[in-house]
């Protein structure tokens, strides 16, 4: 794709265009109303068209002006960080903090090039105790230490 001179701008434009088009399409389902009595679809549709116009300007710029290439995504870090957080959300109610916290710490810590088991496990243990004391005991948040899966 030699005609793309700035990959960063090109993909930004594509991203904006995708968001703009989905906004316009979805907004079709809502009543437009008139300018004087705007329906729920009016403002969204307007924003969608504005964003589409901006997307085109960015895309044209990407084809005409030289710019930066796209760096590869850091897949490992991305997946580990997001997985750690999602895992926490999945486990917090059922399994409880005592399981969700150490797992979040260990899974996310894998993302670092400096990962070593010993300090990570120590951090996991410390963080679990600290959070249970702070959030459950001191602040009284309704978070289970051991969740419903364990009959708690």
């Amino acid at each position, binding site marked *: 794709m030699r005609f793309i001179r700035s990959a960063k701008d090109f993909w930004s434009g594509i991203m904006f265009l995708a968001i703009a088009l989905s906004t316009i399409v979805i907004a079709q389902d809502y009543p437009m109303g008139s300018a004087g009595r705007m329906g729920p679809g009016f403002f*969204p549709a307007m924003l969608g068209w504005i964003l589409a116009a901006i997307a085109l300007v960015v895309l044209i710029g990407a084809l005409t002006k030289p710019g930066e290439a796209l760096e590869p995504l850091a897949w490992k870090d*991305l997946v580990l960080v997001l997985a750690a957080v999602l895992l926490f959300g999945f486990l917090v109610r059922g399994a409880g903090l005592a399981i969700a916290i150490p797992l979040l710490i260990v899974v*996310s810590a894998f993302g670092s090039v400096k990962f070593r088991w010993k300090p990570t496990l120590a951090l996991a243990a410390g963080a679990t105790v600290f959070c249970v004391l702070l959030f459950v005991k001191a602040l009284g948040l309704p978070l289970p230490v051991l969740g419903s899966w364990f009959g708690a």
Partner: protein
Amino acid sequence: MDIFANLAVGFETAFTLANLFYCLLGVFVGTAVGVLPGLGPTATIAMLLPITFGLPPVSSLIMLSGIYYGAQYGGSTTAILVNLPGEASSVVTALDGYKMARQGQAGRALATAAIASFFAGTVATCLLAWFAPPLASMALQFGPAEYFSLMTMGLVASVVLAHGSLFKAVGMVVVGLILGLIGTDVNSGATRFTFDLPPLADGINFVIVAMGMFGLGEIIKNLEHEETRSMTIKKIEGLFPTRADLRRIVGPVLRGTGLGSLLGILPGGGAMLSSFASYSIEKKVSPNRAQFGKGAIEGVAAPEAANNAGAQTSFIPMLTLGIPSNPVMALMIGAMIIQGIQPGPGVITEQPMLFWGMIASMWIGNLFLVVLNLPMIGLWVRMIMVPYHLLYPAILLFCAIGVFSLNNSDFDITLMAVFGLFGYLCAKLDCEPAPLMLGFIIGPMMEEYLRRALLLSRSDPMVFVSSPISATMLAMSLAALVMVMLPALRKKREEAFVE
């Protein structure tokens, strides 16, 4: 109304034991955050918001603002000691501050930063007390058309002053506006962009967006370029600047304070732009300009004064108009709404205790900062040495618990992960998250005022130009946009941000 009577009310509110405690806690946490690597004030405030829900409104706002200007300050400590600005606005402080530390003058640099920040903070707090009430009473006269134009102007200014590509910044603002539409439409009761997911019916909580984009997104980006930091500081001594030093920094501090106060008021300006601009001015006017970049004390004093002044005066548009000038102020507005306070010009007259209490606490907070920082420098140095690979899992944990406790909902955690992914992709594409955050907060208000203005004018769009105030604001927005698009100025703008 007498300003002294008002300040008396404020100090009375701020000087309760509880509020002094929250002020101290705020600046302490803020400094810690500024010192710790890879955690900005936006993510921290988002993380700590849930904890403030149980506090009275005054205390929670005092604490949150303390975190903000505390972080401003803490960033300079790392900038000077290890050449790693904990915060974007301290980048220029690192240029000369770190050189001074290398030459064994860390104490002098730290003390200069403290004095400059305190002076600037005091002046900016006075400006806030003087200018906020008249501005607010002017804003009370605004109709929906003026408000719509004011918000347009705010968004345009934030785009013009943002760094990076102009069009991408505009795009991010619009994406933010669109995200702000998700939820139930107030006028018709229709649910929009909810994809039939019940948790989205109330809209997306701004805390989730902020934590996802500024917290998670930032962490993934940092992991990609994991740095190794080394501490090579000798013992820090000589925390008192000499009389000659003081004479050298008077001018830079005054200029930095003035510039910072001015730029802080502008939307999108705030602390970062102030510190950059004041450094480049000093580099041109200083009699010691040859020393700049080699450890000039002026190069520490001016940007430190400017970023603290800018941080403080950026409260002015938030408190008087209800319009955020940066993502942190957007979060403060969110915090006010959660506390049941409608941000805007009415706050000063309806909640004088809250308004003046906050202002008084800012001055007290600045005093705390000086007291906290210089004698406790040893503690902060030890915090700098916390390695990132042990820090970020803990930050993630706090984000997850914070978001979960908003509504006790695991859906919110999923949503945060989605915004984390989006934030990372945006960073990869050089699309700034800050304009998005402003658009997200302003979006619903803007739609409301647009609808109301056009309803009142019976769908005549001329309403936006027939009012002189509204017309002026729109003209100024347009002029600003055209100006940055002119090739000559565009180059200047790029240069200004490169430095």
